[in-house]
């Protein structure tokens, strides 16, 4: 079954299901700062013309929570509880994926990587 991104331009969806998605970000040609999602103007030095780059796919968990109510917006509720993390990518950006790891996967620090999930409304992360 073909995988379709919920929104174009934020992450890749490789044709090979075994291949992990990559986040699409930007790199400032002037100061080298990286960003997610892609942007034209560098938020740090205000230089224009940031270049597209692939980010990750691995990152370090900065903080996490486990939400004990259905995914926000009930008409989308296919999941009764879910995790949310903030993950620092090695290039610098901090991203905030929903994740489907259980509530016992606590603690910051372990390495996380990206995967996709059928019908998932957000890019998802899974502990690798």
């Amino acid at each position: 079954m073909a995988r379709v991104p919920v929104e174009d331009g934020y992450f890749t969806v490789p044709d090979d299901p075994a291949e992990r998605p990559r986040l699409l970000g930007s790199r400032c040609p002037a100061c080298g700062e990286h960003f997610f999602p892609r942007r034209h103007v560098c938020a740090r030095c205000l230089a224009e013309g940031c270049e597209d780059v692939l980010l990750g796919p691995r990152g370090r968990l900065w903080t996490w929570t486990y939400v004990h109510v259905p995914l926000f917006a009930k008409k989308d509720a296919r999941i009764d509880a879910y995790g949310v993390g903030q993950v620092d990518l090695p290039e610098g950006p901090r991203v905030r994926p929903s994740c489907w790891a259980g509530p016992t996967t606590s603690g910051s620090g372990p390495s996380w990587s990206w995967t996709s999930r059928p019908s998932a409304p957000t890019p998802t992360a899974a502990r690798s």
Partner: protein
Amino acid sequence: MTLSDVDEAFVGYIQPGSLLGVRAMKELGLTGLPVTHVENASATGLVAFREAAWAVASGRARVAMAIAFDKMTEMAGGGGRSRGTGRDQLDATILPAAYFALWAQRRMHDRGTKPEHFAAIAAKNWNHGARCPWSDRQTDHVVTVDEVLASRMVSEPLTAMMACPADDGAACVIVAAEDVVRARQPGRRLVRPVASALRSETYSPGHTFLGPVVGPATMTRDTAAAAYEDAGIGPEDVDLALCHDAFANEELEYYELLGFCPEGDGERLVETGATALGGRSRSTPTAASSPAGTPAARPASRSSTRSCTSCGARRATARSRGPHRAGPPRGGRQRVHGEPFRGGGVMTEAPALSSRSSSSPRPGRSRRPGSPSAARW
């Protein structure tokens, strides 16, 4: 005073809607006054108030109205906020509580903060709220830390009793020139806005560009510093702070970010009860942080009402009118009304109950010339 006395109105409501401010004001009457719709997330009501104060301070209005309202009950359940469109849908499925929980978890990791600290703050505010007839939630018993911890888990480590209610409400502040107030309310104590600061984020590594940004320390610190400097006061002068408290962990952060204690000392304030009513001491110059006597935490997204109420709107309308005043702050009780979550803050001054005549200018701090972010009243 009636609507016909109002020269300009600022209407705060968090949901978008074309001409919503004008449509809301029409319900009060059609007088031709200029109306501006304000939406600035949790700082919506506070910004409406700031703009009303500016309108009077600038001289273009003699009487300005800041009015804000919420219909959180229509927003709850996601009927009006589904997945959004475009990039918004990438983050919009996450419960707002999660953003604050992420902040709380990181503090627990960094500082060893316990859920009991958050629960103690929530219990304090629940119990403060029980003393206020305007509180949305009233309890018939003393709320304990254990009760808060035992309530339903929403987003770890935040429980339901650490969270704000999703409710409806409205608030209005009339800001008028001092001579107008003196003529209409002779002998009444006045509340004067002495400074207002509003900032957006400055870039720092770790900034999240998708979805709400919760907890960048620099934004809150910088906003508070700007307001303190322009008011000519410091944290030690503050008697009462009303802060954004969608969730109890926010208040703990703001103890430090607003300068009421050194960084890392917030938990100590909780443990000693220094920030409860009556807990003020020489070393902890803050008092309660329960917005206008409302209980526990209230929603970040109910912005307008809570901003207005937390900036003392109900009390202001009931007890005083706040005219513009130039010059340094005078003797009296200093209050900070803050929405540090969105980088907004207003400081007001009310005459001390026992020293209505002690209004000599305070010596000391000079005001910054030409501050770009803070209103100098």
